[in-house]
């Protein structure tokens, strides 16, 4: 889908936006800014040599992370991907401990053992990012079984990309979730490329969501850069899962404005394409709509952004000033007990 095909911002408040109260919108906007600023700071830290290894930035995809988690309660579960910073922050992770993890510090979520790709925050229901494409989908099946067996009313949202939809794990997991009617939302962030592979060349169907019919579950395509639309689709899928209706597949059409990882030289896409999607920036789009509808004035929104930026600046100081892990404790957490 090209940006031109996505519908323009309406002049009047649409139902998807009307469904969100001021506090929810404020929180959503704040978290989108947190994610954006977090990743910009992470990227800059990498460029300055403060962070080693690699990272996968989700700049441009903030609406799907925040929108998909908006209907979730604090004890609902998510499973995330290698491009998972947004999911973690959206579910309530502390950016300071995340950034400390990037810096490999003992105060990081994983005590410097996991890095960018393996952040989990069990207390906020975040069962972990995953370095393996489609690695989270089978785990979601077990989480769904566990919720069912423990007679809980929780839901599990599992994020994955378009690339994961071509892994066997995707098909096995959707089938298992469907035959057992598990409380799972399969949340595909289709950002158009599996590393460099254009999704149009990687699938014989136009939408990942088209595959839902093979597993007798709803398959919904949504503009992934449109926060109220994502929230609306997610709310319906989450309600269905919570009410015993079984799993859904929600596909957010979005775009990563940065490369796949630090090695990406953008040889597989054009500057024009990137610029066209930059014009659909999910944060600016939401702000512009909120302004048009009179939900927030420009000053209020500026202060939300400033507040988020300040939190990330504090997170950066925390990460920089935190102690490194002790090599003597290397194997401390290989085994439990």
């Amino acid at each position, binding site marked *: 889908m090209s940006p031109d095909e996505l519908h323009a911002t309406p002049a009047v408040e649409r139902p998807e936006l009307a469904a969100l109260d001021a506090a929810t919108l404020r929180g959503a906007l704040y978290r989108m800014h947190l994610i954006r600023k977090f990743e910009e700071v992470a990227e800059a830290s990498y460029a300055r040599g403060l962070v080693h290894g690699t990272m996968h930035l989700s700049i441009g995809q903030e609406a799907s992370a925040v929108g998909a988690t908006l209907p979730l309660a604090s004890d609902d579960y998510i499973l995330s991907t290698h491009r998972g910073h947004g999911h973690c922050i959206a579910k309530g992770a502390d950016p300071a401990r995340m950034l400390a993890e990037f810096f490999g510090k003992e105060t990081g979520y994983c005590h410097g053992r996991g890095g960018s790709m*393996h952040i989990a925050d069990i207390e906020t229901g975040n069962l972990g990012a995953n370095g393996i494409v489609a690695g989270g989908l089978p785990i979601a099946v077990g989480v769904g079984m566990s919720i069912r067996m423990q007679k809980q009313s929780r839901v599990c949202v599992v994020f994955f990309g378009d690339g994961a939809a071509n892994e066997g794990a995707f098909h096995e997991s959707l089938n298992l979730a469907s035959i057992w009617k598990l409380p799972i939302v399969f949340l595909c962030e289709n950002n158009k490329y599996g590393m460099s592979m254009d999704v149009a060349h990687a699938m014989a169907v136009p939408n990942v969501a088209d595959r839902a019919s093979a597993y007798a579950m709803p398959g919904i395509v949504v503009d992934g850069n449109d926060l109220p639309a994502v929230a609306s689709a997610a709310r319906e899928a989450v309600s269905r899962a919570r009410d015993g209706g079984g799993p859904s597949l929600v596909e957010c059409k979005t775009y990563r404005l940065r490369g796949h990882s630090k090695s990406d030289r953008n040889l597989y896409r054009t500057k024009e394409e990137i610029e066209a999607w930059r014009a659909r920036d999910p944060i600016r789009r939401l702000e512009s709509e909120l302004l048009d509808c009179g939900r927030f004035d420009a000053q209020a929104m500026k202060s939300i952004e400033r507040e988020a930026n300040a939190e990330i600046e504090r997170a950066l100081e925390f990460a920089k000033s935190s102690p490194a892990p002790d090599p003597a404790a290397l194997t401390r957490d290989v085994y439990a007990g």
Partner: protein
Amino acid sequence: MPDDRSTIAGVRELSYAEAIREALAQAMEADPRVFLFGEDVGVYGGAFGVSGDLVHRFGTERVIDTPISELSLAGAAVGAALTGMRPVLEIQFADFVTLAMEQIVNQAAKIRFMFGGKASVPMVVRLPGGSGTGAAAQHSQSLEAWFAHVPGLKVVQPATPHDAKGLLLAAIDDPNPVLVFEHKLLYKTKGPVPSEPYRVPIGSARVAREGSDCTIVASSIMTLRALAAAERLAQEDVQAEVIDLRSLRPIDFATIAASVQKTRRLVIVYEGVKTMGIGAEIAARVAESELVHALLAPIVRLGGADSPIPYNPVLEKATVPQEQDIFAAAHALVDRS
């Protein structure tokens, strides 16, 4: 280590398969978090009859028939374990674990470490392995060494009905992922099994027979063959000490070392392919320690040939160590030194 079976009342003769079934039943009776799932474990009773009537005793919510989806079943075990359950997954033939490697090696084994000790994965995978049934190359492998190579996993290999029950109960209690490699030829073997629940500690080998002339370290069915060989050796005045490894990871090197210190001769026998196998690890540990000076002769390894398991029964037997091979190797070792 003294044999603990005589200290527990209510000892009966059970088959290895019955002992496993009893462990599963007692674990499910004692703990509502425990459940069994896998291909044909329900009314079929398991491909090797291990689950038997469990579905009638515990219902389809706790003894769950699944589609043929090994990767996602292993992942489901991970997800259920992460969120408060104690799953036991039966992989129908150990060979099929190759389809589930991603979830076991990348996820189950690493989650605790990657997430900085914040999560644990108390799951059990039961794997019927080994040759001797005429099932040929894709249904006869002994792959335990692969998993013993992975930090974060535990690997056990019971040889007797007693240990099949005790190790499985210990595995279900364990807060880590544990792979239980059962042997298809052992399912019908009988031995004394206490009726009460008991645990055989993971990481403890067993001196199955005491002797002074030669140590034979064996695993799984090779323990039975080593004991039979030891009886014949005794008739020729060679007293072999047989150590049943029981656990590959963690390995009980102290028990091996104490025996080698005494006998000064070492034979290691296992069914998995000899090259790069568990015998190499044990031999290397001896060679790296002061024990090497106690040896009267080079260490002997007996393992699977560098060949897939063939169909023809004569060829199949020739592929893995038999009682005669162990007898001849131990005899020659004692004769030459």
